[in-house]
């Protein structure tokens, strides 16, 4: 995703409150616990254990998770398509070192 901007993605994640359900390694508060810890998400093979972890699918997932995984607790989030690509780019910077 060459034109996507991870820093802008992180701002979006902060603004809409993804951290109320997830732990992000570079966001100190909140550290939500309803969803999985995303500390090394970049190295994961599947999204939510079901969907292949590909940039286009991840962008679609963070915007409207129930469309890809029906019945999931993660709801559709109020972000634009453009923002969802930035968010995906940010998520690919999260890896255990």
């Amino acid at each position, binding site marked *: 995703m060459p034109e996507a901007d991870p820093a802008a993605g992180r701002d979006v994640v*902060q*603004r*809409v*409150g*993804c*951290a*109320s*359900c997830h732990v992000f390694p570079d966001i100190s*508060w*909140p*550290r*939500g*616990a*309803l969803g999985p810890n995303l500390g090394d998400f970049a190295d994961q093979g599947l999204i939510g254990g079901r969907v292949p972890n590909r940039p286009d699918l991840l962008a679609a997932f963070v915007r409207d998770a129930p469309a890809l995984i029906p*019945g*999931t*607790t*993660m*709801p*559709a*989030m*109020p972000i634009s398509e453009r923002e969802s690509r930035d968010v995906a780019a940010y998520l690919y910077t999260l890896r255990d070192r």
Partner: protein
Amino acid sequence: MWPRISTPSGIVEGLAGWPPPVLDPAGPYAGSVAALSWALIALAAGIFLIVLAALWIALRGRERLRARLGGERAIWIGGVVFPVVVLTALLIWGLTLTRNLSEPAGGPELRMRVSGEMWWWRVSYLDGNGRAFMQDANELHIPVGRTIAIELVSPDVIHSFWVPQLSGKLDMVPGRRNLIRIQADRPGTYAGICAEYCGGPHALMGFLVVAHAPDDYARWLAARRAPRAAPPDRQSARGAALFVSAGCAACHRIAGTPANGQAGPDLTHVGSRRTLGAGILPNNRGTMIGWIGNSQAIKPGNRMPPYTVLPGEDLQALAAYLEAQR
């Protein structure tokens, strides 16, 4: 008018700025506090310069100047007269200002009551006789240009009500009723916080004041008083049933429904709130589910139990129902 001194950070940045900006008044009460603050800062800076100059003279000055600086006259003037005059003036200014903070600014006032509770705010809108005609939580709606007289109370420990852009801060003391007046002269959203340590998640105890232009305020009030619609779809109807069966109704009130709990915030208008968790999260489907499912991870120690046992679809239904409570 004044430079903005605030360091926006974290999740509520987009809402109103966190922490709320100080020395950026938006009304007469906060304006007088800011004026005193700037006068103090300017005075302190001036005195600091005078002391530096005296120090320089003492170390490097000409013999004649040094002698004058060390003389009795200089001590009387600099050590007695100057402090007495300045401190007396400041005392008079400060005391008058404190009194004016709780004096009406003129014109008909509106009345409200805000109760600080561990760790959120119970809000009542009062009629002319001081009787509550509307309940809400964590958000105050006011018209611009009108003075709002707010009774501050607390059922548990001491909290402190502080909206830096609209007034000074005043404690909420159990067993007492303190009066503060606020006024906003321009429409906008003003963040407030608890300014007195009150235990556990005290640092996560915020709220918002939303100031409307007079016409908008009248429309807002009319909408609040309009009859309430039934849950709009099947998902939120299921949410309504869950709200009772899962036990939420024991702690939360939703006007016009059997839910009449008083231990937690009134949720009659939670769908239209700008924040959740007492001013700390934006309000959307995600944060709503995140809060209901596990508020303890978000605001550790708060008095709402986590609901991690509820399946995703129940949380979705509850959130859909609460979003419709506008």
